[in-house]
């Protein structure tokens, strides 16, 4: 039986730097040259000050769990094989939030505020998903 397909992102010209960096194991985000704010997801302008002066910059890859859920149902056959799995909103130290699975974590491990590190899960040729893993307990912010 063929392995079920995972829904995969299709980069656009605007988002390609994010996905190209992820494929190389780095988290790159847009940063505004005018006001200094970081933003996610990519836009052609700064959401804070409307400047068009955006640059791609490597982020620390560190953050904390803003909120999360543990799925006991999956929206597709690929994720069904991974049940139960954690979906979290990660607040990066730079400010922006993004979604990621907390790889290897169970419900008992999870708590709002736990420190996480962004990791990268290869999902196809030249494509990796930013994911995250919990940092050692006690690092809770």
């Amino acid at each position, binding site marked *: 039986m063929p392995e079920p397909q995972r*829904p995969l*992102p299709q980069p656009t010209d605007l988002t390609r730097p994010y996905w190209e960096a992820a494929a190389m194991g780095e988290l790159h985000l847009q940063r505004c040259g005018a006001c200094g704010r970081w933003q996610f997801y990519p836009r052609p302008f700064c959401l804070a000050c409307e400047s068009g002066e955006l640059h791609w910059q490597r982020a620390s890859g560190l953050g904390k769990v*803003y909120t999360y859920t543990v799925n006991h149902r999956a929206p597709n056959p690929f994720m069904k094989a991974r049940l139960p799995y954690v*979906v979290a909103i990660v607040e990066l130290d730079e400010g922006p939030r*993004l979604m990621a699975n907390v790889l290897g974590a169970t419900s008992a491990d999870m708590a709002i505020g736990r420190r996480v590190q962004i990791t990268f899960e290869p999902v196809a040729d030249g494509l990796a998903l930013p994911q995250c893993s919990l940092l050692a307990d006690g690092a809770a912010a």
Partner: protein
Amino acid sequence: MNPSLSRSVAIVGVAESDLGKVPGKSALELQGQAALLALADAGLKLADVDGVFAHTDDRFSSLQVSEFLGLRPRFVDSTNVGGMSNLLHVQRAMAAIAAGMCEVALITYGSTQLSDGSRKGGAVAADLPHTPRGQFILPYGHLSPIGYYAMVAQLHMHRYGTTPHDLAEVAVAARRWAQLNPKAYRREPTSLDEVMASPLVAEPLRQRDCCLVTDGGGAMVVVSAERARDLRQPPVYVLGAAETHAHHYTPFNTGDWLDTGVAPTAEAAFAMAGVTREDIDVVQIYDHFTIGVIQSLEELGFCKRGEGGAFVADGALAPGGRLPVNTSGGGLSYGHPGMFGMFVAIEAVRQLRGECGERQVPDARLALCHAPGLVFSCNTTLILGV
């Protein structure tokens, strides 16, 4: 909306179609059935309709409905912003009537999501892989909408100590109302223990924290206050109406996820209506998930932030409780055909007309309707009165 439009229109006809499991009928046919019933309720004919407001899971809804019913409207609107769309259509009808673009507005909705199995697994159609949602949400197996509400529930519990028992109170209150509503889909008794023992779907939310999945359609007729005077039913006026919009499933840039935009929407609707929360007799909130009701009650101002769990305790929302909420049984027990905004308004109208039988709230004069769209992407509040 401009306060001068307060009381400028009335909802004069409401109806639902067959509800529950309705195999063998299309969503369009259910809309047609509801439309004819709502027009009959108002004492109007198809030939009177000159404005059509519709949405379905399909496209070009207002044109589909117009053709199906043989209408030749001079104004249509198919705006689809998720579950609150029909409440939004009431506002669109107000604006169109005020601008002279139509006189008799027919608002319809229909879905066959149960018979189609189209909601299975929480997937939503038309998820293209290059959209923000396709790139940054879908690869992570996030269930939508429930995953978002689960995350909000998690945050609410973390910050305020809200418990699964509090969530279950909302589901049990809904069922108690449904037991008084002959049209409700689920009417058998239930208990807090039963709700809390149902299977987890997305922690901390369980199956019974979630709305039903049913087929069904609904319709409303909106006319000017002047025209409403000679119709069959006592007019239910729109006193206040407001909407706000922020996201499309990707709330990364939201500040606080417990501040979902309900408050400013409600504030604007109250200001337009010139009434206060204490004046409201009956409340209808789009209850796709139990946490959504607790969250909305707080943001609407019926209790303080963080006190929603305590507010709903001990059957406070149920028949005989301190605030009658979702008196039809709501999406949790009455029915939930795809998107519930239509049914929030239908029940409010029936309560204000005093035609709710066993579940009637005595002397109901003012009702608040609230619904969000696409998780907490947008909000609409309507304040209706007689």
